[in-house]
C-alpha cells in the first residue's frame, strides 16, 4: 500500500491536474490506509473527502477528466462500484467513442476488492471481469508492490478510463519498490516464473499463491511457468500463447467466481491461438466457487482457490489426469 501511496504522491507532485477523491480518504486515510498522510501534503482541495455517494464519485471523476483534470477515484470496497455502474459503463467508458473521438477521459478508479477478511458477501467480491466486458475501459490488477506502483503511474498517465483493482490482502505485502517514478506499460504480461511442464496464468493475489504452489511442486520435480497478465484489458496474449506452445498445458487461476470469469476469456484466447495445436490436455480453470462469499471463516477460505488447491490441480494436469 505504501507503493500505491508513493505513486499517487509523486504523480500529484509532478502534475497538478492529478487529484484523489473518495470516501474517508482525508484525515482518516482511507478504509485501508492507502491515502494516509496525503491530506497533510496536498490539502483538502486535492484529497477530496466525499459523502457516501458512489455514483457521484464516478460522475465527478468523469466530468473532471473530460475537462482537463486527471482524477483518481477511490471506491472504498470494490463491491460498492455497483452503485457507480451507470456513470462508469454508460458514460465514462463510451464517451470518447460516442463523441467521435473528441473527448479524453483520463481517470483511474481504484477499488479494493477480494475476500479473506471475514467481511462477508457485500464486502468481498471480485468484479473485475464485469469491466473487461465493457469496451472503452481498461482493467488493471497488480499482484506485487513493484507492479502496483508502476502500473498505477502508467494508468495515471494513460488517456483512457481505467479500473484499477487492488486486493485487500495484498496491501500488507512487502517487496522492493524503486523510489523514483517508473511506469510499467499497460498491456504487458509478466512471466513471473519460468517452467516447462505447465503454464499457470494467475491474477492479483493468486499470483503469490501460485508462486507458493510452484515452489512445492518444484520439490516433486514439476516445473511451473507462471504468467501474470497484470492488465486484463488490454491483454498481452503473446507471452501466454508462447508459453502454452512450450508447455502444452494451461491452468488459469483467479479468485472471482468461475462462471463468467476472466478465466473463460483466457481459455478462449488460448484455444483460438496457434497454441491450440500444442495442447496435450484440456485447458483448466481454478476459480472462486459460484456463490457469494460466506461470512464463516472456514467456508470463506474454501470459497476461493488456496495454495493447496492450486498444487493439487496443477499436479493432476501435469500428470495427465484430465
Amino acid at each position, binding site marked *: 500500500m505504501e507503493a500505491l501511496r508513493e505513486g499517487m504522491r509523486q504523480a500529484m507532485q509532478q502534475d497538478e491536474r492529478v487529484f484523489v477523491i473518495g470516501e474517508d480518504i482525508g484525515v482518516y486515510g482511507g478504509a485501508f490506509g492507502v491515502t494516509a498522510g496525503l491530506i497533510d501534503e496536498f490539502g483538502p482541495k486535492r484529497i477530496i473527502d466525499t459523502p*457516501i455517494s458512489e455514483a457521484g464519485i464516478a460522475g465527478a471523476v468523469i466530468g473532471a477528466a473530460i475537462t482537463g483534470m486527471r482524477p483518481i477515484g477511490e471506491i472504498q470496497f470494490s463491491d460498492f462500484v455497483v*452503485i457507480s455502474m451507470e456513470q462508469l459503463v454508460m458514460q465514462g467508458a463510451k464517451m470518447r467513442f460516442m463523441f467521435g473521438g473528441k473527448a479524453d477521459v483520463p481517470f483511474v478508479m481504484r477499488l479494493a476488492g477480494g475476500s479473506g477478511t471475514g*467481511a462477508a458477501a457485500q464486502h468481498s467480491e471480485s468484479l473485475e471481469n464485469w469491466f473487461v466486458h465493457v469496451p472503452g475501459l481498461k482493467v488493471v490488477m497488480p499482484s506485487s508492490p513493484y507492479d502496483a506502483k508502476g502500473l498505477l503511474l502508467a494508468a495515471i498517465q494513460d488517456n483512457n478510463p481505467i479500473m484499477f483493482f487492488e486486493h485487500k490482502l495484498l496491501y500488507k505485502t512487502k517487496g522492493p519498490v524503486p523510489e523514483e517514478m517508473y511506469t510499467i506499460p499497460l498491456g504487458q504480461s509478466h512471466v513471473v516464473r519460468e517452467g516447462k511442464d505447465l503454464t499457470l496464468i494467475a491474477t492479483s493475489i493468486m499470483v503469490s499463491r501460485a508462486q507458493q504452489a510452484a515452489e512445492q511442486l518444484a520439490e516433486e520435480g514439476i516445473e511451473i511457468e507462471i504468467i501474470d497478465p497484470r492488465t486484463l484489458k488490454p491483454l498481452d496474449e503473446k507471452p501466454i500463447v508462447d508459453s502454452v506452445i512450450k508447455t502444452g498445458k494451461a491452468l488459469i487461476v483467479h479468485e472471482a467466481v468461475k462462471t463468467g470469469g476472466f478465466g473463460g476469456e483466457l481459455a478462449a484466447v488460448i484455444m483460438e491461438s496457434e497454441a491450440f495445436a500444442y495442447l496435450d490436455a484440456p485447458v483448466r480453470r481454478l476459480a472462486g466457487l459460484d456463490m457469494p462469499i460466506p461470512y464463516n471463516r472456514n467456508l470463506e477460505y474454501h470459497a476461493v482457490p488456496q495454495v493447496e488447491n492450486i498444487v493439487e490441480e496443477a499436479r493432476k494436469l501435469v500428470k495427465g489426469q484430465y
Partner: protein
Amino acid sequence: MNRQMDAELLIDHFQTMLRIRFHEEAIKKLFAQGKIGGSTHLCIGQEAIAVGVIGLLKKEDYIVSTHRGHGHMLAKGGQLKPMLAEILGKNDGYCKGKGGSMHIASIELGNLGANGIVSGGLPIAVGSALSARMRKTDQITVVFFGDGASNEGNTHESMNLASLWKLPVLFLFENNHYAVSTEISRSMAGSMAKRAAGYDIPFTEVDGNDVEAVHFAAEEVIDHVRSGNGPFVMQCNTYRMEGHYFGDAMVYRTSAEVEEWRKKDPILHVEQLFRERSILTADEIASLRAGIQAEVDDAVAFAENSSQPALDSIFSDVYSEWQ
C-alpha cells in the same frame, strides 16, 4: 416533555436497552479475543431509538435495518443466542453463519435484513410497503438509515416513490453524526427536514437518546403511517459512542466530544428517570442489570459452543433449487 411513559413499559424498554448494550459489549470482548473478524458495527449509544420505535410495532410489521443493526433486531424480538451465534459465524445463527453481523435478518420476525450496502435497505422498504398494500394488510415498514446513507441516490429515489405512492413507510433517520470519519456537516447539504419537505413527506425530529421522547414521537408517526396517510420521516439525533468498527483510532474526533455525549448515555438517562420518579431503587436497577448480563453470558457460551457450518453445505442456499 410532560407526558410520562407507563412505569412498567419503561422498565421493559430499559431491559431491552440493556440487552442490546450488553450484547454489544460482549461482541467487543469476543473481537478483542480474535473470535470475530470482518467488520462488526456496534450501536452502543443508540439503543433508545431501536427500542422506542420498534417497541410500538406489531409483530407483523417490517423493519429494514442497517450495518449497525444489532439493536434493531433485538428490539424486534431477536434472541441473543442466534444473534451471537451468527456473529461468531456458527450454524445456530440467524443466517447459519453465512451472513454475519452485517446481514442479520429474520423474515419471520419481520426484519428484512441488516445491510452491508449503505442505503441498500431504503428501496427494499418501498417494496415491502407496496406489497403490504397489495396484500391488503395494515403492516407498516420502518426503515432505518444513517446520516451517511442520506446522501445516496437510493435514499432520494425511495423517499420520492414512497411519497408519490403514499406508501406506509416510516423513514427512521438515525443521525449519529458520523459516517465512518465524516461528520454530518461535511457530508450533508441542506437538512433532512428540508429534504422531506421537498418530497412532500411530513417530518419530525427528536432527541434519540431519550427513550420517552422517541416513544411518544413514534407513537404519533406510526399512527399516521398506519392510517394510510403515506410516509413520514422521523429524525432521531444521537451519537455513535464507539468507533466505526472495533479498533478504530478515531483520529477524526476529539475525546472531549465523546465525553460530552457519554453524559447523555440513553441508559443512564432511563436510570435517572427511575430515580426521579421513584420507580426503581439502585439495588433493583443493579439486579436487573445482573439478570440481563447473565442472559448475555449464557448466550455467549451457547454461541461459542455452537458448531461450525459444515463444508458440504457451502453451496446450499445460493438458489432455492438447482435444475
